[in-house]
């Protein structure tokens, strides 16, 4: 019963916090660019605005286009239920396997890419093609650091990995962890569609990747997809924050009193905002890369992940 309650609490927190995080990142970016920027609540206003609007469907689309927002959102939502974000003691934590999480993201992406092709415009097709290419080369760079962490923890269950790290304290943080963290952070930039891989602010046809696939969406469908994208960003941050710096997370060892949960929530929010600040700094200080330079960046991140793996194997003792 406790586990069910914790899972629902975690899900509600994610639904409420994810748009705020995007708002905060945008505000920080605006600060660095000497702008006032929109309010941190703007993402909520956008979503509620989309919900009020009429849905316009292209005449060429099929049912794939109509079910995609639901498939995308539900896949992301299920990841929210299984991932250790505030607590490792969720009712579905036992099946929160890292491969399952990554492949649920892939399921969401698969349908979104199909929807991009469905309306028959060149923009959607171009975005789908680029998204699948970038995500394909990001995949090994994403998996290798996670493998290293799974091997270090002795399980590929994410809650297990997080608990293992949380019990270890400072000595658990080895050079291997730092290298894999940086490697995973670079992939995190690609997965959340941020500069220098993609630009979340642009609607300029030739530069966008992710936005192009959403181009034909409107109304409620767009609201669902936009919220899904905010949540996905938060989940990637949760992977980064909790696997490497899980301190503060509520686990059976810490108990589940209200103050513990409160501090776990605050600790996670602080970590997520911290990562958001770094993202905002990177986005402000860099330009978007040419599409065909992205493989070099991801290759670098893969090699860093490999170094992390080697150092883990060698220093294991």
């Amino acid at each position, binding site marked *: 019963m406790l586990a069910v309650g914790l899972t629902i609490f975690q899900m509600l927190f994610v639904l409420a916090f994810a748009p705020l995080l995007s708002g905060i990142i945008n505000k920080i970016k605006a600060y660095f660019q000497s702008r006032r920027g929109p309010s941190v609540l703007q993402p909520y206003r956008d979503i509620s605005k989309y919900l009020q609007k009429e849905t*316009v469907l292209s005449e060429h689309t099929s049912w794939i286009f109509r079910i995609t927002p639901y*498939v995308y959102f539900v896949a992301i939502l299920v990841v929210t239920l299984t991932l250790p974000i505030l607590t490792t003691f969720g009712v579905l934590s036992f099946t929160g*396997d890292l491969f399952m999480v990554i*492949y649920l993201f892939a399921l969401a*992406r*698969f349908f979104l890419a199909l929807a991009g092709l469905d309306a028959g415009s060149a923009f959607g097709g171009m975005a789908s*093609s680029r998204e699948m290419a970038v995500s*394909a080369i990001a995949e090994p760079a994403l998996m*290798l650091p996670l493998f290293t962490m799974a091997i270090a923890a002795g399980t590929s269950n994410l809650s297990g990995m997080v608990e293992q790290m949380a019990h270890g304290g400072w000595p658990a943080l080895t050079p291997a962890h730092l290298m894999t963290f940086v490697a995973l952070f670079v992939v995190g930039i690609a997965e959340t569609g941020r500069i220098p891989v993609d630009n979340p602010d642009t609607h300029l046809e030739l530069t966008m990747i992710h936005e192009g696939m959403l181009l034909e969406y409107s109304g409620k469908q767009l609201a669902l997809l936009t919220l899904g994208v905010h949540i996905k960003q938060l989940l990637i941050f949760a992977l980064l924050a909790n696997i490497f710096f899980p301190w503060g997370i509520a686990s059976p060892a810490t108990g589940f009193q209200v103050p513990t949960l409160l501090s776990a929530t605050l600790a996670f929010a602080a970590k997520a905002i911290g990562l958001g600040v770094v993202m905002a700094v990177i986005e402000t200080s860099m330009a978007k890369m040419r599409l065909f330079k992205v493989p070099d960046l991801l290759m670098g991140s893969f090699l860093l992940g490999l170094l992390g793996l080697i150092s883990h194997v060698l220093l294991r003792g």
Partner: protein
Amino acid sequence: MTILLFYLVLGLLLLGGLFAYSLQGKPRLSLRVGFSFAVGSAVAGTVLGIIILLTGDTVYTGAGFASLPGMNRAFLIDPLAAFFILVISLVSLAVSIFSFGYAEEYIGRHNLGMLGLLYNVFLLAMVALVASGNTFFFLFFWELMSLASYGLVVYDHRDSHVRRAGFVYIVMTHIGTLFIFLAFLLLYQTAGSFDFEHMAQFGRQLPSGFKTGIFLLVTVGFGTKAGIIPLHIWLPKAHPAAPSNVSALMSGVMLKTAIYGFIRVVMDVLGGGSAWWGILILSLGTVSALLGVMYALMQHDIKELLAYHSVENIGIILMGLGAALIFQGYGLPVLAMIGLTAALFHVLNHALFKALLFMGAGAIHHATRTRDMEKMGGLLKLMPWTGFFFLVGSISIAALPPFNGFVSEWLTFQSLLVLGSAPLSLKLNILGPVFGGALALTGALAAACFVKAFGIQFLAQPRSTQAANAKEVPRSMLVGMGILAVLCLVLGIFPSSAIQLLNPVTLHLVGYGSIQALGGYAWLNPQIPLLPNLSYHTMIAPFVLFVVLALGALLVYRVVKRLGHGGTRIDETWNCGGTLSPKMEYTATSFAKPIRIIFRRILLPKRVVETEYALGFHFTRSLKYEGAVKPFFEDILYRPARNVFLKVSGKMRLLQSGSIHLYLGYLFITLVVLLIWAR
């Protein structure tokens, strides 16, 4: 009792073939009779396979009609053979039902009696081959299978491309058979018997050099049939040439008989070997998987694309097998069990979704008369059921949950992760996860490839009149595809049902049953004694996942329906104010372009652009664009080999001058030499 069932399987196929052939004067009747017998035999085969796998018994026939020296068992069906009979039967059940509708397009064009005969003989040869108790029978049915499938590949023989594909196929398959022959003769020489059972007693005590020799011979021999790179060149030629129901069988099942032969010889007869065998197989598998999927992305003929995906999936199967061999070499049977279970489960899964996809390609060809993806588009609205089944196949092959491909890929990932943490050498600890990274890349590229395959063919607007006039295929074809689509989902949600069936197989081969460490009702949970015991076991619960996904979708749908108050309007696609035409859509070639550029050093693309100008430099009259990927292995491996062969043959021709006097002279010289030497 079960042995009678086995005779029933073979008997029905034999009768089906003969009846179909004798009724060739009445094509429609011949078609129905031939495929009905195949369906009956497939049902019997499914029951047979499940009975043997559930009881774990081994069934055999005595020497009886095979009274040659060194042969005590004509047929021997142990759990391994039963598993492959099950795979063959499940796929042939669906494909035979599909064929009722599909083969009608050949009425009046080709001899349907011949199709019925070859089809049934092909199935018979595959079942008999995996049930063979000795190498003699094995090779006989192996050859029968190759010849029957050759006959089916060149069925549409009026097309010169088809004849050429058939030629490449038959040459390559015989090169492979040669190596298998050699391996079996070597085994016979030491064991003194053709029986697999008998050989298995001697095989394990053979000197290691000898074992290695046999291992390498069967790797090349069976590797040719399985289509591992660089022995794969026949595969993307033969699969598109054959009728689609035959391609479904060849890709779904025939390639698996090579995996069966490899497992039979290497794991059963030889009982595994040193760890480097596993590393070799793992590396071959990784290269095949990666290059297979990359080449697949470059194809725009749907059947060629699927053929390259067979290369990829055979690679994934070999990755699991390679991991199993490594663990076996280190004497870790529990871990070897995980790799073997992953490989065998993927054998079943690939058979199901690949046969489904090939049938889908056949259905599209049936409706549009083309295999060129660039001419399709918008088919989902015209062929809703075919589209739906093709989507199921695409999601399964892209290894996305909650379908079956995900589960076997998860098991393969787990065996590679354990390579990284088990007490092996440091090199292997590092290599294991790197191979895992390669598998991750393969999976993501496969997903990209099937976004392309499904999206370009079924979505947006039709790109040609053929596609615009497509109609849904007859019901029998839909039933055939539907059976496999349902199985893909069922095995994805209840993988432990398949794991349970694999229990006697792994128990027999590595001495450790799969259910002991993997199992539970609806989840997979490798409780590996070597790893630390944590509060969280490594596990996935596909059924729970499926229920949560379904309930979540329902909940979200309900909630979103209530929120807001905007209606829905149908309008045109935004196109910067211009009118949208199908020519503006992304094509299969353009979809794959970023990947072609990223991997240009591997794929070696070339393009030719010819522009014809009307007046000056600014007025283009016509533009011709040609793009292709360099056939790397043909160029560096096969063309030089063929040239050497032709050169040697040219020299040999000097002996054959055509003069009868010279030939009489050869005879005389031979006679004299023999008289002197063999005095």
